[in-house]
């Protein structure tokens, strides 16, 4: 049971967690978390089906999971749920949710094992012809493989959301030297997706890819004689982006106002104080020599996947004053102790619940959650527990992400179909989600097994977005982005994903999907990734049945009558000949899929 909860993939050896708890805090936390988890799990009344559980399933007996407050969903409600909780609905998952209900599906997913991105990279690396080296496309490919076919879909979707909050990017020339490290970082996010926020923050902070990206790896203490101060990069962004944000928040995520003005959470002095904490950390290895700190000498071959270690000689002993914390000046450098105090201080700030909850809601469900929705999720974050109907999940520890994710997906605002009619509800599907959805709904398979799609940055000819390749630490788009000169702005709404929608990207997407629907995706001839339209072809003679199926999988059955009419007429414009109907059927299916994927109704997840 515990094995499944904590090690969803087979990365024990190369998993930074196993050699990264040098500070002690990590290990202690995880022990507490595991114990609490075990209790909660038993208390929740879940039982296992017995015997050792192989990698093929979670071991959760779905029929014994207590029901949530919602009745067993219809197919359309199930598809809608899956479009929020996974990389896209499939027939099999729709049936699973319909049969067992939301809580059973979530419970199953919480314990579902999955594959490791790093293991994929290692395997590719071992099989590369001599003279060839890993490139970014390999990281993309493992991402696509798991998005399309991974059975631990909820973990993948949440990890992808976390990768947009806790950003590291292969666009950075230093980070891009470490493909395995980036794969390991994505694994780390997945491993913590249903764990504790505090632990996640610890692992994000100490992962060498973050250390490289925000330059606290090899960060030195101040040297007044040479006018040198610690690098402030991580100190700033950990507060602005990873935890509390710029302004004091109410529990519902709205800014606290004093005399009508928002209240800043920190100022330059807090940055200076906190920057001293993030000194004296660098590459892991068997010793703590100055040479190793500086990245030289004989490097640990696994350093890119091992948490950074502390080097007291390079750690500041000056006073460190930030937020509500003060670490007095000392005589002995204690980098691990200082880090623990700093992250405890940050993680216990009351902003964290609403700040993180609101952004996760935006990534999974809707761009403009009501303050009450944010408050309910933040409450689950703070309480570490979420209850719906007879089902309860979470450890009871503040910052429990399992409870947070469950609260997001089972909130009435996420589930009620009445929201569909709200003109401001939903979120623009980001390009990666659209393509992954197409792969899943139409059972795309890779003939190489490796999903050779690669980098999709080019907005003109592909998606204008690649996983783990954000332009900056501010992600592809900001949670507060307002598209100027639009009815969205007039309505006072935000639309984060619209930040990467423009006159160029709409062309790139349409042409990319036309080609994908027709010819598949990826390198090779035929292309490596091919959809399987068998089920759709069987319906192709009847436009309505064909559209019903495509609409269920892609739009959760929400296609409007007007859109349906356009697509039906277009499908029917392809005549079915009396004989040799194969080509006509294929054309009809492709048209229905391409039109639906291009329709604004699909492009907005509701």
């Amino acid at each position, binding site marked *: 049971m515990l094995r499944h909860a904590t090690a969803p993939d087979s990365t024990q050896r190369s998993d930074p967690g196993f050699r990264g708890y040098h500070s002690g805090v990590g290990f202690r936390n995880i022990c507490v978390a595991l114990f609490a988890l075990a209790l909660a799990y038993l208390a929740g009344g879940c039982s296992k089906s017995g015997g050792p559980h192989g990698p093929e399933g979670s071991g959760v007996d779905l029929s014994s999971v207590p029901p949530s407050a919602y009745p067993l969903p219809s197919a359309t409600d199930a598809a809608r749920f899956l479009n929020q909780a996974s990389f896209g609905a499939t027939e099999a998952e729709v049936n699973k949710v319909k049969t067992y209900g939301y809580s059973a599906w979530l419970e199953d997913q919480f314990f579902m094992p999955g594959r490791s991105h790093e293991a994929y990279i290692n395997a590719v690396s071992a099989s590369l012809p001599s003279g060839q080296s890993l490139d970014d496309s390999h990281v993309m490919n493992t991402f696509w493989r798991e998005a399309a076919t991974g059975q631990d879909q909820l973990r993948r979707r949440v990890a992808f959301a976390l990768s947009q909050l806790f950003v590291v990017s292969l666009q950075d020339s230093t980070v891009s030297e470490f493909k395995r490290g980036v794969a390991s970082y994505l694994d780390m996010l997945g491993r913590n997706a249903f764990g504790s926020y505090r632990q996640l923050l610890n692992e994000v902070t100490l992962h060498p890819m973050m250390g490289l990206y925000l330059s606290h790896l090899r960060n030195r203490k101040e040297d007044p004689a040479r006018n040198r101060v610690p690098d402030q990069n991580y100190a700033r962004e950990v507060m602005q982006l990873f935890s509390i944000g710029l302004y004091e928040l109410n529990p519902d995520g709205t800014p606290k106002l004093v005399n009508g003005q928002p209240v800043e959470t920190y100022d330059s002095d807090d940055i200076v104080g906190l920057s001293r904490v993030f000194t004296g950390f660098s590459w892991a290895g068997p010793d703590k020599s100055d040479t190793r700190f500086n990245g030289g000498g004989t490097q640990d071959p696994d350093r890119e996947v091992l948490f950074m270690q502390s080097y007291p000689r390079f750690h500041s002993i000056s006073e460190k004053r930030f937020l509500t914390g003060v670490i007095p000046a000392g005589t002995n450098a204690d980098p691990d102790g200082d880090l623990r105090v700093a992250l405890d201080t940050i993680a216990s700030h009351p902003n964290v619940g609403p700040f993180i909850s609101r952004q996760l809601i935006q990534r999974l469900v809707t761009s403009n959650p009501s303050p009450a929705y944010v408050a309910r999720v933040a409450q689950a974050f703070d309480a570490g527990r979420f209850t719906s109907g007879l089902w309860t999940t979470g450890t009871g520890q503040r910052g429990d992400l399992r409870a947070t994710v469950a609260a997001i997906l089972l909130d009435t605002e996420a589930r009620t179909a009445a929201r569909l009619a709200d003109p401001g509800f939903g979120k623009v599907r980001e390009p990666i989600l659209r393509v992954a959805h197409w792969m899943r709904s139409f059972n795309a398979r890779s003939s190489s097994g490796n999903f050779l799609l690669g980098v999709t940055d080019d907005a*003109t000819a592909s998606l204008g977005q690649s996983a783990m390749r954000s332009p900056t630490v501010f992600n592809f788009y900001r949670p507060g982005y307002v598209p100027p000169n639009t009815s969205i702005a007039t309505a006072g709404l935000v*639309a984060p994903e619209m930040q990467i929608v423009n006159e160029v990207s709409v062309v790139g997407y349409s042409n990319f999907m036309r080609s994908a629907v027709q010819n598949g995706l990826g390198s090779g001839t035929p292309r490596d990734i091919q959809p399987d339209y068998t089920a759709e072809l069987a319906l192709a003679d009847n436009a309505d049945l064909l559209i019903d199926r495509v609409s269920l999988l892609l739009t959760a059955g929400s296609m409007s009558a007007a859109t349906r009419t356009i697509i039906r007429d277009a499908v029917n414009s392809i005549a079915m000949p009396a004989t040799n109907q194969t080509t006509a059927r294929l054309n009809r299916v492709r048209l229905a899929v391409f039109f639906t994927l291009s329709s604004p109704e699909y492009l907005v997840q509701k």
Partner: protein
Amino acid sequence: MRASRRQFLKTASLMSMAGVAGPFALNLAAIGAASAQAAPGYRAIVCLFLYGGNDHTNTLIPYDQPSYDQYLAARDTIAIARDQLAATATGAVASQGGREFAFHPALTSFKARWDEGKLAVVANVGPLVVPTTKTQYSNRSVPLPPKLFSHNDQQSVWQAQAPLGEGAKLGWGGRIGDLLAGQNTNVQFTCISAGGNAVFLSGQNVIQYQVGSSGPVAISGISGTLYSSASAAAAYRNLITGTSANLFENELGVITNRSITSNQLLSASLPPASTFPLPNPTSNLASQLNVVARIISARSALGTNRQVFLVSLGGFDNHDSLLTQHNQQLTIANAALNAFYGWLGQMGVQNDVTIFTASDFGRTLTSNGDGSDHGWGSHHFVLGGSVLGHEIYGTLPPTAFGTSVDVGQGNMVPGIAVDQYAATFARWLGVSDTNVPLVVPNVVNFGTSRYLAFL
């Protein structure tokens, strides 16, 4: 689908009446005034935004020996060696008390334009609400720009009017566009970004048009035979440009429709990319400038007389590996701007196009060992045939700690406001004195020195 000037005015007036225009409401009189004083001929500005916060200290380096010694003492391991600077040195600059400076060694074309009198330096420019001293900053006794030192916030402060930050909706490039779009037949080509989405180009009425660095590309599904159907392409176009009650869906249709109509116009008008051969080293920035050049060269066909462009280059957040990374990025900028200036000459519009730099912020004078951190004021560069170059505008403070502008770690309280910098471009493009505050409202706080003298 051409949006004529008449339609534009109608739209503007409707928006004003509907009350959506906000506190800086555009009015017809404002447009009329701008149009009335329109100079004949073509003018454009091109903003090169250096994302990440350019390290100004290593972009324009003190070169005379005493100044250089100060710089070296301050910067330690991130100082550029003096013997690398001889080829790009400015010579003594009278306005700066005879001090000498040198461009970063990669900026050879900056030095060439400087020598030709076509490149000016604007010293220590940055966001300000009112003229501000170090003491006023320390005492917080005057209004200050929000969230100094933060990337996304300062990008927005540089580019936009209130509300600032992530929800910013109005950029000063877009506001210039609002006031001058009446001079363009095709209003949608007034404010064009080849460098990604930037609030800089969004006005109240004028919409930022984004173009790819390879130029216009068509949606293939809207023409010809689609999946063997002759009628499907028209249906597809209807589908993807349709309206919806859902605001997000509706906006996707609006953008797609704009993309299709603009693409048709541009495709019919632009010369091939090869008209303007890319430099070596080439770069995405060079390609962005290439498409800008193509659009400028099609100004007659497109009926554009006043344009605001944005191109961008990232990679300036050099907390780490400053010497290497900064050199790489400036090498790209140098080659791209050198080529672009040549292309303007090829078209005979060097005097009609002015290029300027902008960035999130300057960086600390202090070193963190291998790089520098977020700052405030910064030095910027203005390039073009109409620029009164070979001069440094404003005061370049001593490159040392504890100066009259040092607010900590050598970060400078700006001596020149972004609003003054912006006002200078707005006026040059033809925005009237009366209307300049509509572009940069805080410029009224700067008394008689609303404009800088480089244009």
